[in-house]
């Protein structure tokens, strides 16, 4: 119980740092010095002290959206194993986690329409487009994981996978992981799907949706999306590659688990930074190509499981 809470707090505490590191790494790769990795913490704190401006046209949907999104993200964070395979799994499984994050999507996209701003409408429309076509990929990669580890309980998956050791590098899991990675890029508005750094009208998706927020509301929305990114990273790290995760409460195992987690998250952070520095944002209507590719990957993952697993 304590460890579960601690690892959730760890995840919540690390979330802005991960975003800070990605920004800093990108800056380095682009030859800039960039802000400190701690800058997101400062930004969030600063925003918390400011007052919020809400549109006259908006209703209660816009007002409650930041709180609901934050609560849903924290609920999702409670479900993921971070350094130890035990979680608050009583609440639900991987599927619930995906649907908890769907709450975030539902409320952000709806609240984006609330102020009647054109930007909000555009962001909402595009976000729904992107997340809708990436959803089958998401579910099929989960399906594959469920097939391989014969459970969709998050703790159970890491447990089963961690105990198989290196054998688990099998084609279907790798394919599913690749598909899931593209889904992560899409769900978290990263390049090449969206550019988190842009404020150019024609290209922004996520930023367009949170344009109407300010002060505390903005702080919550930003923090929620940072946490969401880390939740997805943690899923990737501990569901597909659960090496080193602690399977018991033994302090040494936990220390190894922490270390392994930090290493895996750093690798993912680096991967995102490299992708974002080396690729351009894709045109919106080119995205289906990417997502169909991801979908095919996840479909192949399932088929590969049946070809190679059952036979």
């Amino acid at each position, binding site marked *: 119980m304590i460890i579960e809470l601690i690892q959730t707090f760890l995840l919540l505490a690390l979330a802005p740092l991960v975003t800070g590191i990605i920004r800093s790494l990108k800056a380095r790769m682009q030859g800039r010095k960039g802000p400190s990795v701690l800058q997101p913490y400062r930004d969030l704190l600063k925003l918390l002290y400011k007052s919020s401006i809400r549109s006259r046209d908006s209703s209660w949907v816009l007002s409650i959206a930041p709180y609901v999104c934050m609560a849903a993200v924290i609920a999702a964070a409670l479900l993921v194993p971070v350094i130890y395979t035990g979680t608050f799994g009583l609440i639900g499984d991987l599927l619930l986690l995906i649907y908890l994050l769907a709450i975030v999507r539902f409320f952000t996209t709806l609240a984006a329409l609330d102020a009647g701003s054109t930007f909000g409408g555009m962001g909402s429309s595009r976000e729904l487009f992107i997340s809708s076509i990436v959803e089958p990929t998401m579910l099929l990669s989960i399906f594959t994981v469920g097939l391989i580890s014969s459970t969709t309980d998050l703790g159970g998956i890491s447990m089963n996978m961690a105990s198989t050791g290196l054998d688990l590098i099998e*084609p279907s899991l*790798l394919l599913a992981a690749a598909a899931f990675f593209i889904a992560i890029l899409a769900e978290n508005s990263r390049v090449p799907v969206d550019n988190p750094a842009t404020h150019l009208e024609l290209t922004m998706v996520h930023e367009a949706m949170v344009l109407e927020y300010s002060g505390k509301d903005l702080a919550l929305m930003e923090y929620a999306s940072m946490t969401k990114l880390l939740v997805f990273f943690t899923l990737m790290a501990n569901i597909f590659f659960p090496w080193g995760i602690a399977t018991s409460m033994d302090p040494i195992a936990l220390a190894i688990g922490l270390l392994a987690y930090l290493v895996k998250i750093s690798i993912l952070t680096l991967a995102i930074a490299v992708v974002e520095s080396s690729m351009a944002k894709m045109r919106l209507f080119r995205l289906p190509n990417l997502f*169909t590719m991801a*979908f*095919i990957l996840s479909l*192949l993952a399932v088929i590969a499981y049946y*070809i190679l697993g059952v*036979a």
Partner: protein
Amino acid sequence: MNLIDGLAATFLLIAILAVASGRVLSLVRLYSLHSIVLGITAAAVAALTNAGHIYIVAALTIALKGALIPWGLRYVIEKIGVHREVEPLVPLPVSLLICGVLTALSFYIVQPIVTGHDILETITKNSLPMSLAVIFIGFFMMIARKKAITQIIGLLIMENGLFMAAYAVAYGMPLIVELGVFFDILMAAIILGLLAFRINRTFDTVDTTILRRLHD
């Protein structure tokens, strides 16, 4: 065994990537990669079954299909000045979905042979559905792409799939047959390259849909 499965999956994946790629040059690069994976698979089969002659085939595969033919294709592309876009007849997402269907279909077709007992006892039998899928995908690529160059690559990918299938069923063909096939492929590539030249010179394009005019 797991290694061969992984290689076969990569082999299939590259074929699908080839369908997904929008540039002619990256298509050639993918073909080269595809052949190299085939060569590595052959080497792995050789190592696992202690069959010496397969090493020769593996080396030849990598040298010929991984390097020589792609080089030749690139030469032709530059010479003719092929436009870099692939120009699909079927839009890319739909092509990809069709590839998914083809893969599922080949799995469905081959499944009884693979899982049935005593029919196929090779350690590589799991790669049979994937190689069949590659053959289908190569075929589909020839149907769904406009340019002569992309059709050649479709054919070559199909042929790679055939080799893979041969490894899956019987650890490859006898050496002399393989050598013969290599020679054939080389000739085919050259002839097709020349043909592309001729089509280009006659019609000022390598778009094969233009050939329909010959009908009149």
